[in-house]
């Protein structure tokens, strides 16, 4: 049993808005082992990005309250000052952003953006840092890295830029990599390349990866465990295989029905989830998904279901009327 790298307990992120408190992330608990890939899926606005940023310790300076605990390698992220967090940022935890078009400084050569961290944080001298930066560029699959070293971001395509972004994130050899929708801004063909690259690097550098996405196809084969979020809360979590095969929460089913499958005959209509995600300022008292759920009962609308364990170890879900599993077990 490998020790846990990341332990998140009862984490809530609440924004103080003029209209009242808005719980973008509510009572989330999960953990992550070393060299494991965890997927976080959910619709837009389900709190995935806020969750990953909170885990990172990135919040706006004002109007936000974070409670709970994020223990990263024994370091408590919640409540730590920026100066304290600067010690782990880059070296223990790094982040890849959604849009490679905006996550590189347009007026700085890409090589410089990579070797900044090497020189400032790892104390390498100029030539050693340059050599290592070129090595990293090669690692992320950039052709003729020594020449690309002095290119500006504007001279590279989107896929190449995302590779550079990954290289900058890897520069400090972090143990945890948070990838916040790393492929949303890219073409489908490039998406697969980037995801395979992340996988390969994760194995090579023995990192753990948190993959945040709204695309179930992305997480299906690349993650070992999966968290499904809705309205800022975890509604189902478990091993990826278990969640795909024996999901109990109707929302997970709806998400799966909403993504195309190769086994379907052509021109099969995708099932869209009716309605919209709830307004986080004005959550219904019961299950947040109840207004859109076809299985909802009065109990669902009155009482909020808590996460409960399912039959498979590590699998849990929050639902009063869980779907039957393929094994025929009830809750």
């Amino acid at each position: 049993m490998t020790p846990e790298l990341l332990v998140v307990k009862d984490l809530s992120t609440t924004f103080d808005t003029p209209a009242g408190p808005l719980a973008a992330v509510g009572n989330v608990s999960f953990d992550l082992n070393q060299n494991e890939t965890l997927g976080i899926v959910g619709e837009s606005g389900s709190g995935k990005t806020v969750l990953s940023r909170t885990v990172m310790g990135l919040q706006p300076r004002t109007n936000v309250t974070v409670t709970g605990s994020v223990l990263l390698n024994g370091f408590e992220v919640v409540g730590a000052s920026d100066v304290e967090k600067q010690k782990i940022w880059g070296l223990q935890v790094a982040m890849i952003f959604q849009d490679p078009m905006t996550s590189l400084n347009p007026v700085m050569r890409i090589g410089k953006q990579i070797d900044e961290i090497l020189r400032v944080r790892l104390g390498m001298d100029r030539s050693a840092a340059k050599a290592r930066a070129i090595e990293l560029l090669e690692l992320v699959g950039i052709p003729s890295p020594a020449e690309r070293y002095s290119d500006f971001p504007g001279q590279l395509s989107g896929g190449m830029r995302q590779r550079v972004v990954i290289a900058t994130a890897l520069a400090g050899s972090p143990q945890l990599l948070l990838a916040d929708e790393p492929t949303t801004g890219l073409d489908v063909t490039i998406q697969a390349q980037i995801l395979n690259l992340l996988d390969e690097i994760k194995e090579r550098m023995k990192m753990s990866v948190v993959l945040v996405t709204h695309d179930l196809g992305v997480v299906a084969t690349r993650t070992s465990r999966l968290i499904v979020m809705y309205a800022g809360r975890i509604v189902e979590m478990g091993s990826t295989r278990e969640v795909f095969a024996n999901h109990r929460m109707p929302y997970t089913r709806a998400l799966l029905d909403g993504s195309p499958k190769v086994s379907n005959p052509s021109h099969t209509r995708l099932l869209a989830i009716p309605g919209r995600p709830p307004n986080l300022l004005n959550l219904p008292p019961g299950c947040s998904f109840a207004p859109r759920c076809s299985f909802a009962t009065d109990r669902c609308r009155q009482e909020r279901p808590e996460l409960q364990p399912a039959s498979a170890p590590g699998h849990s879900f929050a639902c009063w009327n869980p779907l039957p599993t393929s094994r025929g077990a009830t809750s």
Partner: protein
Amino acid sequence: MSSSYFVNELVEESTTQVTPERKKKLGILFWICVSWLLLNLLGAILANVLPLQNPLFQNYSVINAGPSLHHLFGTDDLGRDIFSRIVYGSRVSIEVSLGSLLIGFGIGAPLGMLAAYRRGKFDSLLTTFMYTFLAFPAIIATIAVLSFWTPRSLLKIIIVVGIASIPLVYRVIRTATMNIATKDYVIAAKVQGATDWRIMVKELLPNVLPIGVSFLLIGIATVITLEGSLAFLGLSVNPPTPSWGNMINESRTILQQNPWLAIFPSLALCLFLLCLNFIGDRLRSHFEVTEGNL
């Protein structure tokens, strides 16, 4: 024959377009403006060395003369050479503009960047203060201060105009920085463990710089106009020291006898400002397009 000509032309065209090093041209007018400013600057610096007539020497045998070979722009009502007074006068304008913008940018720009990056209470307090300052028209505020702060000297004018320009610089730099501070690459640098200081210098400053530079050029023009207005009201440097503004002021009384006295300093002022504005505008659009391409 004709087809090969076309092919050649096409090839040439495509190669010039593909070359990534080829920069977008700034245009001939831009360079004319730059050389004009440099010429003015050079004249101001080298005024003592150049074979100019003494700008203070009063030659009563030629008063209110029109342009001639001996007095290129003519003479004023005291027989002083206008050309040499314009060259010496540019010193005051340039000194006041550079000096006060050094104060304006030296204080306004770092504060603006800091406020935009840190936000929170610091930002709201400072911004409220600066905007309150902005509510007073600069000309009235400077007139008020300069009327009481006597005897006047160049340094005092620089300080007063400089302080008056701080909120203007602050506003422009703060807005520009705010736009950049929310970009992902700034957050990316932060989560790589970059210190605030490093983010300001390496990430924010290079991206704010083009806007800062073009505002600086437009700012110089504004400050020169302000100095001109103050001089026209007799609140700038004391006569007989020439400045473009007080030369225009002096010409007012004898406009009918000697219109040249008004025309030349006004022309010098106008051309200088026009060039500054044009360059600033040109640079801004030049950098803006580059940013859009990225």
